[in-house]
């Protein structure tokens, strides 16, 4: 489904600020894989997401989706396969536009955008159905400007917008990190049920160790631009937070330092 082959990314090459953000990354995901990603600050997790989604181009290596090399495609062309939710609740929605307009833009993903009306009665009905499944009353507020919503509501909407057109790949970059614990838990639950229901191939960066273990069927750990540990479903079953942190220290030689670290 998703393959990264020998991907490397340098920032500020050949200057004193040179930074190896990714170093020879190999990652293969099967259809329906739900992989959680943990790692220290600056490990390269967000860079990895950006390389997959096309925000950045790798210096070497390639990105393959469904046996098609998409390394050369710009971000907007790749988005037909990729759904994304960002860490910042402000990032995934357009605040001065209404909920239904935001959904209409998400609905048009991968289609030619022309002169036909963005929000039609038939679409509105579909939007309302999807919104009601979130269970937070957004289906009653189709005409509300998204800027009026709380962070949690916006993130739930972002998640819906990223997924309801059934993307091949879902990328979640700490999408609950900016929320308070109760809202974060709600978004986590929504994520879990949506991913399971739609069987989405998902890559989720999280700073919550317990969540990284509980969710998904595979866990990878990054440090210094490398994938240093890759834990499959079998081994993930009897993993604990202590063992995970222990392994990290053993392999990387230092403690996991993440300013947003949550153990569970």
């Amino acid at each position, binding site marked *: 489904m998703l393959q990264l082959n020998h991907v490397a990314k340098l920032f500020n090459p050949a200057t004193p600020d040179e930074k190896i953000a990714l170093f020879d990354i190999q990652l293969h995901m099967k259809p329906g894989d739900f992989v959680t990603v943990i790692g220290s600050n600056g490990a390269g997790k967000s860079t990895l997401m950006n390389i997959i989604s096309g925000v950045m181009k790798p210096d070497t290596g390639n990105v393959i989706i469904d046996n098609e090399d998409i390394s050369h495609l710009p*971000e907007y062309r790749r988005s037909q396969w990729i759904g994304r939710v960002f860490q910042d609740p402000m990032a995934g929605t*357009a605040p001065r536009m209404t909920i239904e307009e935001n959904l209409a833009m998400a609905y048009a993903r991968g289609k030619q*955008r022309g002169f*036909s009306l963005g*929000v039609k009665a038939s679409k509105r009905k579909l939007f309302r159905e999807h919104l009601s499944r979130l269970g937070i009353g957004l289906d009653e507020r189709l005409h509300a400007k998204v800027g009026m919503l709380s962070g949690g509501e916006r993130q739930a909407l972002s998640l819906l917008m990223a997924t309801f057109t059934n993307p091949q790949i879902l990328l979640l970059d700490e999408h609950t990190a900016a929320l308070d614990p109760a809202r974060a838990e709600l978004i986590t639950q929504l994520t879990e049920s949506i991913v399971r229901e739609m069987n989405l191939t998902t890559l989720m960066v999280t700073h919550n160790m317990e969540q990284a273990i509980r969710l998904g069927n595979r866990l990878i750990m990054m440090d210094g631009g490398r994938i240093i540990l890759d834990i499959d479903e079998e081994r993930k079953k009897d993993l604990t937070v202590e063992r995970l942190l222990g392994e990290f220290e053993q392999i990387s030689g230092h403690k996991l330092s993440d300013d947003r670290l949550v153990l569970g």
Partner: protein
Amino acid sequence: MIDSLWGALESGLLYAFMALGVYITFRILDFPDLTVDGSFTTGAAIAAVMISNGYSPILATLSGFGGGLVAGVCTGLLHTKGKINGLMSGILMMIALYSINMRIMSKPNISIYNMDSIFISVKPLIIVPIIAIVVLVLLDRFLYSDLGLALRATGDNERMIRSFGANTDLTKIVGISLSNGLVALSGALIAQQSSFADINGGVGMIVIGLASVIIGEAVFGASNVIHHTISVVLGSIIYRIVVALALRVEWLEASDMKLITAIIVIIALVLPSTRRVIKQKKMAKKRSAEILLVGQKKTMGGGM
């Protein structure tokens, strides 16, 4: 007096297309586009030249509109593909258009007095509102289409709309082009109303457009796109009424209008930020007073 008010209504509607153009760049795309001063003249120049060469006024007007579209595409390309700063792209295009407009007109001033124009066969006060309503309906319909939504999102959250597959370079070019098309349409119509085109006719247009947008928003509000665009049109009319009234004040001269316009825009730009600063100061005062009070109570309570 009544006559000058009707006149203000008429030119307010004609300049409203220009204001709508400015609304698209400034408000929707959040792109301060200075091409306007040049493209307004481009529209006027094309229309005047074609009419004086015997072409039909309708074709001349549409060609003026087309000239603006092309000018906008150039600014958009400079900004998106050439990666030139937005203000700079507009300024460059504005300067370039001066020479181009001069080439089109081949002299600084063209009179089309007593020649054919859109306003000859139908009374301006009938035809102008009709054109305004048609343009408004088409523009609003466009802004609610899939492409229009992407255009609006480009100014609202570019990263987000790109993640949903819109080519934001393209949406910006479309927006800037449409904006300058409307500005040039306005120029083409004004040239016919006033029976001449002048190479300096567009000077200061951008500020007038901004003033109209700001006045419209302040007086009539802007809850959604339809409401906002109607407010901009009404803002343009109010602006012309203000001009007409100011011209009747004895100690004011016609040339003072640009200063007055600039002052209107400055007030509108400064007011919100000063208001915010004052509000924050008040809030800070109140909060620190509260915190002090709580602190005093604690120390008075003794013990811990």
